[in-house]
C-alpha cells in the first residue's frame, strides 16, 4: 500500500515528531494542571488565571517582562546592525575572527559573567567610581538590581544572537547593488536607508523575533542582575515552581506568557509584511 504524502509533510515529519514527543506532550501535562487547584485532589478551576489577570501586581510583572524584552530587542537590533554591517564590510580575512569575538560572551558561565556586571554596575562599581571621579554625579546611581541593569546585561548576552542572524544576510548581500545606488548619486546614508535596510528586512525580522523571544523567557540574567526587586515572568514562574511548589499557578503564568507573546508576534508579523510589501514596491 502506498500512502501519498505531499512533500512538505514529509519534510515536516521528523520535526513534528520531535516536537510532539519532547515538547507538546511533556509541556501539555504541565499546562493541564494550570486548570486544577494545586492540592493533589484539586478540582477544575480557572482560579489560577483569574488570580493573575485581576491582580495589578502580576499584570505589572507581565508588562515589565514585555517592555524589557522590547527595549532589549531594539537596542540589540541597533548595535547588532552596526556590528554585522561592520564585520560584513571588513576585510575577508578578519571577518571570521571578528565573529569569533562576538560569540565569546556566550562561552562564559552566566554566574561569573554576572559577577563581571556586578563589578561594573555595582554601587561601588567601575561606572559609579568613574562618574564620581569625573564629578558627573554626586552620589552613586543604581544600575544593578534595576530594569536598566537587566536590559544592559541582557543586551550583552543576546547581541551575539542578533549578529549571527544579521551577518549572513548582510554578507551575502550583493555589494553591486549598493555601489549602483551610490553611482546613481545617492548619499551613503540614503543608500543605507533605501537599499541596504530593505534588503536585510528578513534578517531584521528574524533577529528581533529571536531576541525578543529569548528575552521574555530569560531566567538567569534577570534573576542575578535584576534580583528579587525586578521580578519578571520567568523569575516568577521559577519562584512559584521551586519555592512554593505551586505548579498550577506557575504553569498558568507560562500559558499567559505564551499567549501574550504569540499575539504580539503575530501583530508584528502582520505589520512587517505590510511594510516589506511597500518597501518592495518602491
Amino acid at each position: 500500500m502506498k500512502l501519498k504524502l505531499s512533500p512538505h509533510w514529509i519534510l515536516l515529519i521528523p520535526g513534528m515528531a520531535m516536537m510532539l514527543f519532547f515538547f507538546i506532550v511533556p509541556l501539555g501535562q504541565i499546562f493541564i494542571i494550570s486548570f486544577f487547584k494545586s492540592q493533589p485532589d484539586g478540582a477544575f478551576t480557572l482560579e489560577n488565571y483569574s488570580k493573575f489577570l485581576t491582580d495589578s501586581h502580576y499584570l505589572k510583572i507581565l508588562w515589565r517582562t514585555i517592555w524589557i524584552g522590547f527595549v532589549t530587542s531594539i537596542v540589540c537590533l541597533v548595535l547588532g546592525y552596526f556590528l554585522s554591517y561592520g564585520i560584513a564590510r571588513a576585510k575577508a580575512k578578519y571577518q571570521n575572527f571578528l565573529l569569533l569575538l562576538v560569540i565569546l560572551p556566550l562561552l562564559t558561565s552566566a554566574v561569573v559573567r554576572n559577577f563581571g556586571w556586578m563589578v561594573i554596575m555595582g554601587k561601588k562599581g567601575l561606572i559609579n567610581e568613574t562618574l564620581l571621579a569625573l564629578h558627573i554625579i554626586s552620589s552613586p546611581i543604581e544600575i544593578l538590581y534595576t530594569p536598566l541593569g537587566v536590559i544592559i546585561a541582557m543586551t550583552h548576552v543576546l547581541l551575539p544572537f542578533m549578529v549571527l542572524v544579521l551577518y549572513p544576510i548582510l554578507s551575502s548581500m550583493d555589494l553591486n547593488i549598493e555601489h549602483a545606488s551610490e553611482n546613481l548619486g545617492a548619499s551613503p546614508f540614503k543608500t543605507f536607508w533605501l537599499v541596504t535596510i530593505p534588503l536585510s528586512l528578513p534578517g531584521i525580522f528574524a533577529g528581533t523575533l529571536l531576541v525578543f523571544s529569548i528575552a521574555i523567557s530569560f531566567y538567569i540574567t534577570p534573576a542575578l542582575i535584576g534580583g528579587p526587586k525586578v521580578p519578571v515572568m520567568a523569575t516568577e514562574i521559577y519562584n512559584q515552581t521551586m519555592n512554593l511548589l505551586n505548579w498550577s499557578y506557575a504553569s498558568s503564568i507560562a500559558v499567559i506568557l505564551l499567549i501574550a507573546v504569540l499575539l504580539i508576534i503575530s501583530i508584528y508579523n502582520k505589520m512587517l509584511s505590510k511594510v516589506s510589501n511597500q518597501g518592495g514596491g518602491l
Partner: protein
Amino acid sequence: MKKISRLLMLMMASMLILAACSKDDKEEGNSSNEASEKRKLVVSSFGGDYEAAQMEVLVKPFEEEFNAEVEVVTLYSADALARIKAQKGSPEIDVVQFSGGQEIQAINEELVEEIDSSIVKNISGIYESAVLEEGYGPAMAFDALGILYNIDLVKDVPTSWKDLWKEEYKGNVGVIDISNTFGLQFLVMNALLNEGNEDNIDPGFSSIETLLPHASSIVGTTPDLGNLFAQEEVVIAPYDSGYAFNFSKQGQPIGFSIPEEGGMAIFINMQVVKGTKNSELANEFINYSLRPEVQKAFAEKTGFSPTNKDVKISVDLAEVIPHGEEVMDSLIKLDWNTINENKAEWTERWSKLISQ
C-alpha cells in the same frame, strides 16, 4: 564562508572523537562495577566543599562498610524537592537532603516516607530537639541564623538584631529575599521581635519595611551575598553560621554573631524518598550520618554543628560555631507548618513590598 564551515566541521569532528573516547572509558568503568553486584544508592548533596566533605567522611566509609555504591547527585534543597515531586512514585533519588524547612513541604506533598526505627537506631543518641517531625529523618547537623558582618568594616560586634538598623551601616545592609529560607526566617524573626509570630506576621512586614531604606540590595542567593561582601557593597546581613564559616575559610574577613534576642535554628536533614526501591540501604545511610565520628569529621570540615550528644568538637571550631545542646535549645525554632501554609501569601506580599 567556506573556510569557516570547514573550520566548524573540523571542530565538531575533533570534539566528537574526544567525547566518544571519554564515553568508552566510562562504559568500561561501569561494566567492572556491575560485575561485583554492589547495592546502589542515590543520594542528593549540596555541591562544592559541602559535598566534598560529605563524600570523604560519609559516602566513602559507608560504601566500604556496606559494600554499596553510593552515587551523589548535586541538588540544592528546592531543586531536589521539585525533582522528587516531578518523579513522584518512581524516584531516581533514594535519599534526599534538605537545608531546613523543605522537609515539611515534602511530607505534606507525600514525597518522603517515614524512617525505619529498627534501622535508624542512632536516633537515640541525638538531641531531643533535633528530631524534627516524629517518625521522619532527624537533623544530622544544625547551625544558626544570626548576623554576618565584615570584621574590617563593622567595628563593634553586633549584639542585637536591632544593630542592622544602625545609621552607620545605612546603604550597606544585605536584606535577604524571602525566596531564600534565611530571608523567610528573618521575616518571622522580625515578627517575633515585634510581638508577632508565625500566625501574626504583620509586625514582621512593618519591621522589614523600616529596614528597606538601609538595604544595599535585596539578596536572593548565597553566591550573590558572597560577592556583595567581597565587593564591600554589603557589610552586614542576617545569614547563617555555616556560610559564615565557609566564607571566612575562603579568606573573606567575615565574622558571625548570635544576637542577644536569640538566633534561629537551622536543621539540615536527610529523608527517605517515598517509593524508593532501596529503602533498607537508605535507612542505613541516614543511620550512618548520625554516627558521632561521622558528625564530628563533618563538622570540622564544614562548620555545621553535630546533633549527636556524644560528639566533642575541637576547641578551635568550638570558638567559631554555635554548638552543643544548650545552644541548640536556646535557638528559636520555627513553626514550619504554619509558615508553609502562609508562604504563598507572604511571598506575594513581600514581592509587592519590594518590587519597583
